């Protein structure tokens, strides 16, 4: 499409509402044409960031510039050339689908006089422009497969249909930036999965820079080129989905992604390796002995065997099963390691088939040293180099199929 996609340079962005600071010095570069997901827990400031970008709120501090250095701050929303899809769609309930989609063009292409109700039709040029607008609406509607709905009002549409109208309204004027605030959250699971694919495909085709807010990790993981993981008004980590999942830079990031969450058990550096719940993992680090660490291990990396079956070397800890959660093809095993520590394992496929629950519920657990992620007491990731630990990086995924 015609317009060039926008890149953004966001520097030190802050926003307070009275006492409460919602954004606290957020820095972010948005690459033109990318699909960027803002992921984070409720209340972390995702919507606030979008609203500042759209111009609904003024930042308390910091700057927002386009990649060529023009400032956006102080520009009225209508002059930013940004389109937004709202969580609840924010369709104009009293207008037909056609008029909803046409609205941005009517406001832009027709003069003030031309767009007045009765008079407007009489003015020269108005009719021709209206014709062009209708043609554009038709085109967008066809693209979104909603041509048959153009005469209806939003009240007569299903959730998925409303969603498409909202996207249509955003699309029609070929904005330089798309903002989407949890556009799928009010849809049911099946529709959500379907729309996920459609939005991504559309974005790839149009190449318009998109900021997509969600707190659903599946959405972020499957849709994004890059994910911004936000917490407490800051960008905690920015990276591709795989980087965020496999190479979290903070314990909060690791904990936020994956369900059930990554297991975190306390440990400490010793000369022999890392001491963890009475057992020493034979891992050499360059960290000083005695330093406390947090050991993260994802449920799917936890090995389990009946207490009398497994090898004590490979599965050094004894645990008691507290609860089994069979969820179809996989089963979650909730276990207690000692009074303070619990651990969850996820078994599926052959691992599940090979595991029989002992009558007394007593099992042995363990994990590969390569599977663990190490964090310091403050939660910062201890990187392989720094920790002297060569954690396995995940196999690279091909992006070819996209």
């Amino acid at each position, binding site marked *: 499409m015609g317009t060039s996609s926008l890149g953004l340079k966001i520097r030190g962005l802050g926003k307070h509402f009275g006492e409460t600071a919602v954004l606290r010095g957020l820095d972010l570069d948005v690459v033109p044409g990318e699909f960027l997901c803002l992921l984070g827990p409720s209340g972390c400031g995702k919507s606030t960031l979008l609203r500042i970008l759209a111009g609904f709120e003024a930042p308390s501090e910091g700057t927002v510039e386009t990649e060529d250095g023009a400032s956006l701050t102080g520009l*009225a929303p*209508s002059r930013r050339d940004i389109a937004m899809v*709202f969580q*609840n769609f924010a*369709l*104009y*309930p009293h207008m037909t689908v056609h008029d909803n989609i046409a609205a*941005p063009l009517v406001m832009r292409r027709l003069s003030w006089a031309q767009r007045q109700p009765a008079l407007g039709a009489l003015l020269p040029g108005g009719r021709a422009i209206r014709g062009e607008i209708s043609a554009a609406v038709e085109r967008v509607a066809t693209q979104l497969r909603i041509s048959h709905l153009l005469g209806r009002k939003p*009240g007569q549409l299903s959730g998925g249909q409303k969603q498409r109208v909202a996207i249509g*309204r955003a699309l029609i004027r070929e904005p330089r930036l798309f903002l989407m605030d949890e556009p799928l959250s009010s849809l049911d699971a099946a529709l959500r999965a379907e729309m996920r694919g459609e939005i991504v495909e559309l974005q790839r085709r149009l190449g318009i820079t998109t900021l997509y807010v969600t707190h659903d990790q599946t959405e972020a993981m499957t849709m994004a080129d890059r994910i911004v993981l936000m917490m407490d008004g800051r960008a905690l980590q920015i990276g591709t989905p795989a980087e965020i999942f496999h190479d979290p830079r903070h314990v909060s990031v690791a904990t936020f992604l994956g369900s059930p969450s990554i297991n975190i058990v306390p440990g400490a550096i010793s000369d022999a390796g890392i001491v963890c719940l009475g057992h020493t993992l034979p891992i050499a680090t360059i960290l000083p002995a005695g330093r406390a660490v947090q050991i993260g291990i994802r449920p799917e990396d936890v090995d389990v065997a009946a207490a009398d079956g497994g090898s004590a070397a490979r599965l050094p800890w004894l645990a008691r099963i507290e609860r089994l959660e069979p969820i179809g093809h996989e089963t979650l095993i909730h276990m207690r390691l000692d009074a303070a520590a619990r651990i969850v394992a996820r078994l599926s496929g052959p691992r599940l088939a090979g595991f029989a629950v002992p009558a007394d519920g007593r099992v042995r657990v363990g994990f590969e040293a390569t599977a663990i992620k190490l964090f310091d007491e403050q939660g910062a990731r201890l990187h392989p180099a720094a920790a002297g630990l060569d954690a396995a990086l995940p196999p690279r995924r091909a992006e070819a199929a996209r």
Partner: protein
Amino acid sequence: MSRAPALARSETPRAAGRTAAHGLLLASPAIFFLSLLMIAPILVVFGLSFTDYSLGAVQVSFIGLRNYLQIASDDRALAAVGHTLGYVAITVPLAVLLGLFLALTIQGRRRLRHGYEVLFFLPATSTFVAMALVWQFLLHGRIGPINDWLVWIGLGRIDFLTDPATALPTLAVIGAWQMVGQTTILFLAGLSSVPPDIYDAASLDGMDAGWDRFLRITFPMLGPTTLFVVVTTTITAFQAFDAVAALTQGGPAGSTETLLYKIYLEAYQYTDMGYAASLSILFLAFIAALSLFQIFIAEKKVHYS
């Protein structure tokens, strides 16, 4: 309410039957008073309108449609209908449009909003007879301050309440003065139910503020509120009585004699109850027709979310 019957009834096979009985029981006082104070009297009025009943008369006779025929030839009655419509035609648009304007202007105020709501509603709470004294003074054709001001800014004097040409419009403006507070608050309530997201979306689409936003978003979204406000102010305006009774008693030259005031005169001053009853039926028919008409017209155009 005693619990015994409820327990006894709980042995009946149908749980739904029990709650239905409860519902009827709860509604029964209202049904009783509705019948006694609304339905029965209206039927009696209807019946009376076919008689020559005069309060205290020993004899009453059935005179068929004579009262209704009399209305047709009663110039004062016809004039009263005209005055009533005239009053409504000024008061309603004024109260509605001014209320809408005030609501739109107040809406954006954060800190002062509450103060304005209260200030503009004060006239609605005031006792009209008391305020009539003030109005009478303020609007005095010769010594009233408003006329002094009119002269001061170079306009002529207006005999607001004593000139037949201006008396009815003056009453109507005073009526609107009392109603504006209510329409303002109702519109504000309507405005607050418009989701803010819609305005955000509109500002991105180019409707940042002003006329476009009002015409394309606000006003259509206020449809149901506007309908409600117009219907209720119309009904209220039709029933204007206090202003007439307190300020002009139908004068000057009968120019402010409204239908309701005329009914009052016929019934309680001239004690011609039969004729008053027929005028009442006419009055009722008017209001019913007008309300239905407004609702009917508007239902087609009004958007309900």
